[in-house]
């Protein structure tokens, strides 16, 4: 009941051109990125977008390559919507929402070819790069926050030394930075009452009809896209979402500029 009232309130407000927190439709909340927060990880980052808080960690190990790319590293993205973050998150294996986040983030990284996977072989083995996204506090826009956490942790990541005689990874002893050559940024446009909004809060998402996540690279090209929600977009709205993503992607990419310095 309370929930629905909130939903209707959001709809009405947006129809009137307003947002609860008085932001403009195309404004993000404050974005903060802190790296190196998990010292036993090869790379890690805490991203906050307003009250939304996501931790991402990169762990590397040696394993088998895919048969058709025998010398390339393997990227695996996993998202855990741990129950700490929301009363609606249940313990257990990732549900369809967590899986969708993982796959959208994965595609942004993979399709942008931002990681140079080609040089990541070690003998017959290759580096397996696990990117784990751990959502700690859910106040909306989890896809953008998760994607940002993932690329931040990758930018922070150092490949550990490997002792070939002992056949042992020397965790805690970084060898060289993980080769990252692009910075994909996901920007999600939400649709409420026929309007397009960026960076929706959880409250706004109760009234969300549809969302379109557009991930762009540093050249301003599209590298991945994902429509979600049971609503629709017109062709014009799709093109507008692309423009917004290109534009906001540039701004957000600047925030990450410092990680590799």
């Amino acid at each position, binding site marked *: 009941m309370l929930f629905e009232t909130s939903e209707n309130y959001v709809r009405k407000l947006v129809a009137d051109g307003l947002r609860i927190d008085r932001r403009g439709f195309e404004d993000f909340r404050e974005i903060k990125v802190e790296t190196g927060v998990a010292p036993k990880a090869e790379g890690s980052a805490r991203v906050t977008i307003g009250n939304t808080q996501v931790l991402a960690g990169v762990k590397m190990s040696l394993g088998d390559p895919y048969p*058709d*790319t025998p010398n390339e590293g393997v990227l695996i993205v996993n998202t855990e919507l741990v129950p700490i973050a929301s009363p609606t998150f249940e313990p257990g294996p*990732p549900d*369809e929402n967590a*899986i*969708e986040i*993982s*796959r959208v983030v994965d*595609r942004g990284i993979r*399709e*942008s070819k931002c990681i140079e996977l080609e040089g990541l072989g070690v003998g017959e083995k290759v580096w397996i790069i696990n990117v784990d996204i751990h959502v700690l506090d859910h106040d909306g826009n989890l896809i953008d926050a998760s994607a940002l956490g993932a690329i931040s942790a990758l930018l922070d990541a150092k490949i550990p030394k490997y002792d070939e005689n002992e056949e042992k990874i020397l965790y805690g002893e970084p060898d060289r930075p993980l080769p990252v050559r692009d910075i994909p940024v996901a920007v999600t446009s939400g649709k409420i009452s026929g309007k397009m909004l960026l960076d929706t809060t959880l409250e706004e998402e109760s009234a969300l009809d549809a969302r*379109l996540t557009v991930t762009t*690279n540093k050249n*301003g*090209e*599209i*590298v*991945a*896209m*994902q*429509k*979600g*929600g*049971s*609503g*629709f*977009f*017109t*062709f014009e*709205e*799709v*093109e507008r979402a*692309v*423009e917004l993503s*290109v534009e906001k992607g540039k701004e957000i990419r600047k925030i990450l500029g410092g990680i590799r310095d």
Partner: protein
Amino acid sequence: MKAGAPERLIVDGKRLDGRALDEMREIEARIGIFKRADGSAMFRFGNTHAVAAVYGPRELHPKFIRDPKKALIRCRYNMAPFSSYERIRPGVSRRSVEISKILKEALSQVVVLEEFPKATIDVFVEILQADASTRCAALNAAVLALADAGIPMTDLISSCAVGKVDGEIVLDVAGVEDNYGEVDMPIAVTPRDGKVVLLQIDGILTVEEFRKALQLAKKGCQKVYEVQKSALLEKYSEEDVNAVRDE
């Protein structure tokens, strides 16, 4: 570059299977293919073959997940183990969970859910043969199965994929193009209203290429719609199908 890729995928403006850049594979659609299901249909793009069955509207259990105002659509996309060269292990995968979710969301846009409060409408799709665009074929079959089940809808859904191959934007990627192409972009629209209800991209497109791809996709979806309409009209002549509002 993956091992085993052919040198070129487009030669003299033709694709390796002989199609023009904006040419689809052969399309086939039929409805009422199963006896047990409340509605059923098949849809085929060349060697991509999907069958769909609809059960419902029916009671949803457990009670606490019912929506008092409208029906819930549940959707399961599944690949038969023998649909692909590498056997597909039975059971859900992350890929099948994601596709089931986006199909469910697309279908929810056209079904008049308010007519069946508290109920569920279950849509099951099996991919019997897989040669790219399986999610598009699944959606095309699913919406026909819903129509066959007499579920009221505001419009159909027509879906196809465009892609980028050898630097060119092409319609209905298939076969070797699927393995070595640069971009895959499945899309689904409501044919009468032109609403985009499913859209995904894998791979790098400039904004300009994307616009071109969107236009080509519109054409492809229109072609799919014609075939879907024929399948429905074929059934028309046999029985009373006034429950299918969109015809």
